[in-house]
């Protein structure tokens, strides 16, 4: 018989206001095997934990039941406390009488009865609990960063700084991400390239960092400390080691009418290209869809002009396998397509552009060499209208229901830079709310209004119609003046919403990392563990977790890196002992468990068994790799013969809990 101690927590008024904690302690004290039952204001506090420790020592408890908040919150705290005085931590059970009871009930009597029932279930389980010991697994001392934008770059640099090897996998030919396409950055108006390209170069020169650009992750197996990752290195048709980045091929290629994605298709590039002058790695890439040599076998000019002999039309995609201890996800974002917003005329006029396109139009390395020109006729625009919240805070199927966070600031930046460079322009910003909750952000927006004379008008734009004279009629409401405006504009700039990169969803599936409905990665705890995924060993940086500006992204990337370093410095990781276990005498070798195991933890082996008639039979039985098993329990419910059981959550333990509640 166990000697069980029951500790009921008030959680301030969180529990005690709805649950009669004294009554709970009294009722549970009468349960078989319970030698003491007390209640206390904050069980998780130091004195609360000391109370548990003292009781274990003085009363010689063999099991502990804590009626408190969710085990997600404090299970580790209480198990640690118990372990510190010599009790096996897996002899501690938690009855969640906060989330599952006090928070969802109003009636005190009902809530109290339920809390008692939950406590009884936990006691019934402790009776059957067995001490468990966690196994240890070694840690591969290398990190993988998926995504080479500013988030990935910063995380990689910080991890490398601590002395660990890092691989950056980037799907584009160069690292740098969206930030490379920006002109200036708010709120200090630094030139984006001036602060980003040195970091890109630092990545390339750091011998701990390996940039795998033009590559993607195709398969992830394993678990924290031991991820086996398969990376597809897409064929560049250029030998990365030989190419010097001289750019001669990109000048000679006869295929020159290919929309340049880097400049958002506002100008043309060749079939062999280097995305931009400061690309890292600075090597050429052949676009296989447009290269004449690759599509029809008739050209080969780049190979003739290349003095380094780097062109290789026969190159094939390569798959490489690497082992990593931790993975940082930094897949970033994309602006949503403006095509669905018919009323704003994006598809009808070239002079209606998105903010990222405007960014290129202002950029010295952009399609207009930094002079702001109307895309339709190359003339200098006089009146420019900015429309905020295009698709943000939008619950229709066209938009995203969340606030995209950065648009207020970059629109203020665009408006300010436009007025500074071209004081003869009239600049209007139509806003719903101006949201500037960052350091120096509101001052920045006020400068746009007060110093640069940008007209901020509260009200969403209803319609943009192209007129026959080449201008755009912007119909909008001024909600504060209560009037409808019709502005003749030369250009309209749409601050479109931000969405997670489309590669995020399949990647999350590979990593078994969870996502929200908007395809942003979810953090383990929104406040206390903001840079970790709930899946151990997977860390998050940047806009893959939600809309974020550069300062926030860099801060989060640094935080993710520090978590990675904290993991990689360990030589061994303690595993979770709550893993599946096969009772070989009962296993009939049906393979059902092997099929449902999402982690590939189950294999089958042929084993000799002594039969009752003293003969020897060879039977096929399941074997669980405890290092790979995540304890999800899918195999235990699938097993037709009941041979699979989850340690710490055995069928007997679960049934005892059910019985305690129902009988």
């Amino acid at each position, binding site marked *: 018989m166990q000697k069980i101690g029951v500790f009921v927590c008030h959680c301030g008024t969180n529990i005690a206001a709805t649950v009669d904690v004294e009554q709970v302690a009294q009722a549970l004290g009468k349960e078989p095997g319970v030698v003491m039952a007390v209640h206390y204001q904050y069980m998780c506090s130091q004195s609360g934990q000391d109370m548990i420790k003292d009781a274990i020592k003085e009363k010689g408890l063999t099991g502990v039941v804590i009626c408190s908040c969710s085990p997600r919150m404090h299970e580790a705290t209480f198990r640690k406390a118990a372990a510190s005085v010599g009790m096996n931590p897996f002899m501690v059970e938690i009855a969640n009488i906060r989330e599952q009871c006090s928070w969802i009930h109003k009636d005190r009597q009902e809530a109290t009865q339920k809390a008692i029932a939950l406590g009884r279930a936990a006691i019934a389980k402790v009776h059957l609990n067995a001490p468990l010991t966690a196994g240890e697994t070694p840690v591969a001392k290398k990190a993988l960063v998926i995504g080479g934008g500013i988030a990935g770059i910063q995380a990689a640099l910080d991890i490398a700084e601590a002395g660990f090897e890092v691989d950056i996998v980037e799907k584009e030919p160069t690292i740098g991400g969206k930030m490379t396409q920006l002109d200036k950055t708010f709120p200090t108006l630094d030139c984006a390239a001036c602060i980003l390209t040195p970091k890109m170069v630092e990545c390339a020169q750091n011998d701990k960092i390996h940039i795998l650009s033009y590559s993607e992750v195709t398969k992830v197996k394993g678990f924290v400390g031991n991820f086996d990752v398969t990376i597809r290195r897409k064929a560049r048709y250029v030998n990365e080691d030989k190419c010097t980045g001289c750019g001669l091929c990109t000048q000679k290629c006869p295929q020159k009418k290919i929309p340049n994605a880097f400049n958002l298709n506002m100008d043309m590039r060749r079939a062999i290209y280097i995305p931009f002058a400061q690309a890292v790695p600075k090597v050429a890439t052949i676009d296989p869809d447009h290269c004449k040599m690759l599509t029809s076998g008739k050209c080969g000019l780049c190979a003739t002009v290349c003095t380094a002999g780097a062109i290789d039309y026969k190159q094939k995609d390569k798959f490489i396998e690497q082992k990593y201890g931790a993975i940082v996800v930094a897949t970033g974002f994309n602006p949503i397509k403006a095509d669905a917003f018919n009323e704003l005329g994006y598809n009808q006029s070239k002079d209606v552009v998105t903010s990222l396109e405007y960014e290129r139009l202002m950029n010295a390395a952009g399609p207009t060499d930094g002079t702001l020109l109307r895309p339709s006729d190359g003339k200098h625009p006089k009146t420019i209208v900015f429309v905020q919240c295009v698709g943000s*805070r939008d619950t229709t199927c066209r938009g995203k229901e969340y606030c995209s966070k950065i648009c207020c600031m970059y629109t203020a930046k665009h408006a300010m830079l436009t007025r500074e460079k071209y004081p003869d322009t009239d600049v209007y910003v139509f806003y719903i709310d101006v949201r500037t909750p960052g350091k120096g952000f509101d001052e920045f927006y006020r400068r746009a209004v007060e110093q640069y004379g940008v007209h901020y008008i509260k009200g969403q734009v209803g319609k943009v119609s192209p007129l026959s004279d080449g201008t755009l009629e912007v*119909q909008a409401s001024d909600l504060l003046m209560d009037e409808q405006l019709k502005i003749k504009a030369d250009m309209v700039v749409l601050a479109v919403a931000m969405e997670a990169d489309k590669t995020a969803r399949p990647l999350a599936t590979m990593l078994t990392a969870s996502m929200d409905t908007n395809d942003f990665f979810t953090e383990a705890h929104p406040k206390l563990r903001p840079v970790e995924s709930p899946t151990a060993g997977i860390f998050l940086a940047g806009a893959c977790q939600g809309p974020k500006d550069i300062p926030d992204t860099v801060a989060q990337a640094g935080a993710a890196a520090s978590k990675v370093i904290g993991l990689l410095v360990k030589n061994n990781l303690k595993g979770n002992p709550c893993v599946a276990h096969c009772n070989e005498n009962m296993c009939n070798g049906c393979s059902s468990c092997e099929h449902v195991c999402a982690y590939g933890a189950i294999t089958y082996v042929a084993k000799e068994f002594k039969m009752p008639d003293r003969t020897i039979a060879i039977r096929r039985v399941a074997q669980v790799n405890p290092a790979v098993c995540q304890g999800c329990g899918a195999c235990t419910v699938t097993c037709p013969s009941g041979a699979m059981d989850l340690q710490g959550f055995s069928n007997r333990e679960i049934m005892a809990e059910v019985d305690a509640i129902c009988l």
Partner: protein
Amino acid sequence: MDDPKKMKAQIEDISHVDVRKCMRCGKCSATCPNYDDMEYHPHQFVCMVEKGEIRKLMDSNSIYTCLSCFACIERCPRQVEPAKLIEATRLMVERERGANHLKPDMIVQKLDDQLPQQALASAFRKYTK
């Protein structure tokens, strides 16, 4: 006596519009093709219903100047559907006015070449349940 709470509940009941979804962007009014002829504009309908100022809306000519083009419904990013509130306000006025169906002997005076027959049929049907 007007009870703003009751009237508001009635409007919400008829229109099935949840005015609390509005984020005050004004895109409905920005879109309205008959803005200048409306005393109260679509976004004001939403705000005024929320505040329970239904009587003001019922007394306003706006309920007849609305073209029922549904542009405000189409463009609203939050699916608030202001035109449904305007229609509901019209209905409130109609219901308050009570039975006003057409009598056969009134038809002769109303007949003209432009009048569609459906108009007569629907006028007969109104409030005859």
